């Protein structure tokens, strides 16, 4: 199980070596998320339309190791954007992956870029 978790490392925009073109903007619900497959990875991508931002993080919830975060609701906690896991409502910051309602390890986050109507996710490999 730990092996699956190791695949996901936070990537900052400076370290991006590959911008992967994932899907059209319209494939993602407004103020919601969907999952993108990239090689062996599952990435949750969120269209936070209310604040005009896009976020990406691992789809794997570190609590029970299930691929579910893209199906969670998004929102904010005191202004910080977050996603709530649909299984047990563990919440994670979309900015830095931090677990906001517990002390689990942070989840990995990835940069997102919009080019025209395409959604691109940045990876470092």
């Amino acid at each position: 199980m730990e092996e699956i978790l190791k695949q996901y490392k936070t990537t900052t925009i400076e370290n991006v070596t590959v911008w992967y073109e994932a899907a059209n903007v319209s494939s993602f619900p407004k103020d919601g998320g969907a999952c993108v497959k990239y090689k062996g990875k599952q990435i949750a991508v969120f269209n936070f339309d209310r604040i005009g931002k896009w976020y990406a993080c691992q789809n794997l919830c570190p609590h029970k190791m299930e691929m579910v975060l893209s199906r969670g609701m998004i929102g904010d906690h005191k202004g910080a954007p977050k996603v709530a896991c649909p299984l047990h409502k563990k919440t994670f910051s979309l900015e830095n992956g931090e677990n906001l309602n517990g002390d689990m390890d942070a989840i990995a986050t990835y940069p997102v870029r919009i080019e025209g109507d395409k959604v691109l996710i940045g990876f470092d490999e």
Partner: protein
Amino acid sequence: MKNIIVIGNGMVGYKFCEKLVANENYANFKLTVFGEEPRRAYDRVHLSEFYDGKSAEDLSMSSATWYEENNIDLHVAEMITEIDRENKTVANHRGVKYSYDYLVLATGSSAFVPPIPGVEKEGVFVYRTIEDLEATEAYAKKLKAEGKLEAAVLGGGLLGLEAANAVKNLGLNAHVVEFAPRLMPRQLDKGASDMLQAKIESLGLKVHLSKQTQHIQGDKAIEGLQYVDDTELKVDMLVVSAGIRPRDEVARECGLEVGTRGGIVVNQKMQTSDPNIFAIGECALLNSMIYGLVAPGYDMAEVAVDNIVGKDNAMPEYIDMSTQLKLIGTEVASFGDALNDAKEAVDEITYVNKRNGVYKKINVTKNGKKLLGGILVGDSSDYNSLFQIYSNGMKLPEDPEDLILGSRGGDGEGLLGDVMDLPDEAQICSCESVTKGQICNAIESGEANDLGDVVGCTKAGTGCGGCKPMVKDLVDATLKSLGRVVKDSVCEHFDHNRQELYDLIQVKEYTTFNEVLDKHGNGGHGCELCKPLVASLMATIYADTANKEYAIQDSNDRFLANIQRNGTYSVVPRIPGGEITPEKLIILGEIGKKYDLYTKITGGVRIDFFGATLNQLPKIWKELIDNGFESGHAYGKSLRTVKTCVGSTWCRYGMDESVSFGIELENRYRGMRSPHKIKGGVSGCIRECAEARGKDFGLIAVDGGWNLYVGGNGGATPRHAELLAEQIDNETVIKYIDRFLMYYMRTAKPLQRTAAWLDRLDGGIEHLKEIVINDKLGIADDLDKEMSTLVNKFECEWKQAIESPEMMSRFSHFVNSEEADDNLVFVPLRDQKMPQHWK
């Protein structure tokens, strides 16, 4: 940069690290920690929860990366065997040396095993670490397989009783064997012990008092306990919990002063006889005492941190050992001088209620002015108040017995009066040493705005949690004193409660979440609490299905299916009243087979398929709908089933057609969104085979019509439904249920079932009768109209979904691939499958 080495990574050792990291001078130190157990510090107080399914990780005091993030060098499974005080180094069991400027011994204690002949026999365990619990569990499994079920716990103290509960949870018959003539001899008197004994014996544990064990019987493995009074107890396993012994070996060997009966001698600054070495927790001998509770251990950690960073701090000469806990489901608390150890002339006031299993005793001074201590068994709800009165030396009521009997004058005020009358230095949370002043100040200074903030910044209530009600009262009272209104707002994004939002949406006719948030929110962007709530309100008001604005729906409503443990879904078609033709049953069987779904009959008389992936959901539902089924709304906060018995159609006792009426009711209320799930039941006679009184609405056929009951549920707090009307006809039943449900949907709190709602409804069932039957508020017409809109506008949301290509695109695990989730692993279970277990 000074090196600090901590030997021991238990609860107190961890607390030392936490306090040091939080200190402003932390940057001047390099912290290295050694723990001999294979895992990082965990919560030993709640160890028995390990058998309730909590993992070692759940019990852990910190996240895996906490030490690294805070620059702490943690060595687990590494034992320090030598301290060289002259050169200020320590060495591990392999001889590797580390140097220190300050050394902190937090080596804790080990289980004390009395030197009874035979303790080395197979089947004898101690109760101390996760490894001990694992070994005990494995042995218990082996015993059970051999049909052996008797297990004893040696020691009837606090830990012994915890251990006995754990043994019982393993499925064995637990016997508690205690040397003293009562349980918990250090905390309880005879009366309290008797009450506790009666309580735990009623749960199937056996208690043997005044028993001294001479030797342990058996050849290789234990077969029984031989007592000195020539009696015996035949058991197949023994867990020894006869006290603790401080772990002082490494201190002793390097010449630090230790007590005659063990323990590393420390002064009030927690310094040992070597001023550069500190000892804290259960290994330290302070005031000639070993303190086996976690609260004083945490205080010691703080004192040691302060003295190392150069700030004066000292432990008091007298340390309070008051404690409140739940033992084998029984509340037990003791505070102050409960056993009159001081041997002063006191007045003892006792209240014993054998009927309810409650025992309360307090000791007050002869002049009736001061509370000295007390014991509570069976009901410790007054502990916080009594503890505050005792520890702050507060004035007692004229009749001190009011403290345990309650004031019988009838003004109904709490024991303490107003929490704000407590002095600022009153300690509210003893686990984290948080005072009333700190809690109030957190709010007054603007650092905290609500209970969550206060807990976050003061840590109050994060230990045993016993003080939480008082912390909440203080937070509410402080907010009130600052003129801030304490409201039951739904979440941080709205200052409104559910009912206010309901009215706002209805009156202003909002149809999207963002409109509501923009007009009435606090400037934020919503969350997992307010989004599904607003979705549910709009569904109730406009009779919408969950397909509208699906991104604000709770995950289950977004995908119109219940998410299961591994992220797959279950599928439940509606089978109204539980009536189904053989043809339809065959169709269900074929669909289950085709998609390889785990299949089971639910508690609500229908059929549940499990293990469907997101991509499979629309395919399965298309087949179901093509064959005449519809959504069962098993995933929604909405009507689930109306359970029926077979009634007068077949039953020789039946008074009316319960199945026909059940089907009619289920079809009437299907799909309707409500504050929480709703279940119904219809029984054809008073034998009540449909368990209708355990439902939100239930009917029982009697001579002359139906008896209608409302507000029942099973769940965590079972409650029987209450009689709303008697001997009424079908039409009246429907009218009353319509009004009852609609009134509930308008006024309940989020996620409040009808049972809890009715419990808190002012005036209760009589008030409800006035509204539903007599229309006292004059709203019955509105309620009827609103309900008829919901009934008439029903649409199957799964039918909507499979007919719209746009909605169908939601049901795909990936947006850029047709594949299903490749992380899923199923294992065989009997003749079907299930998801592999969580680690």
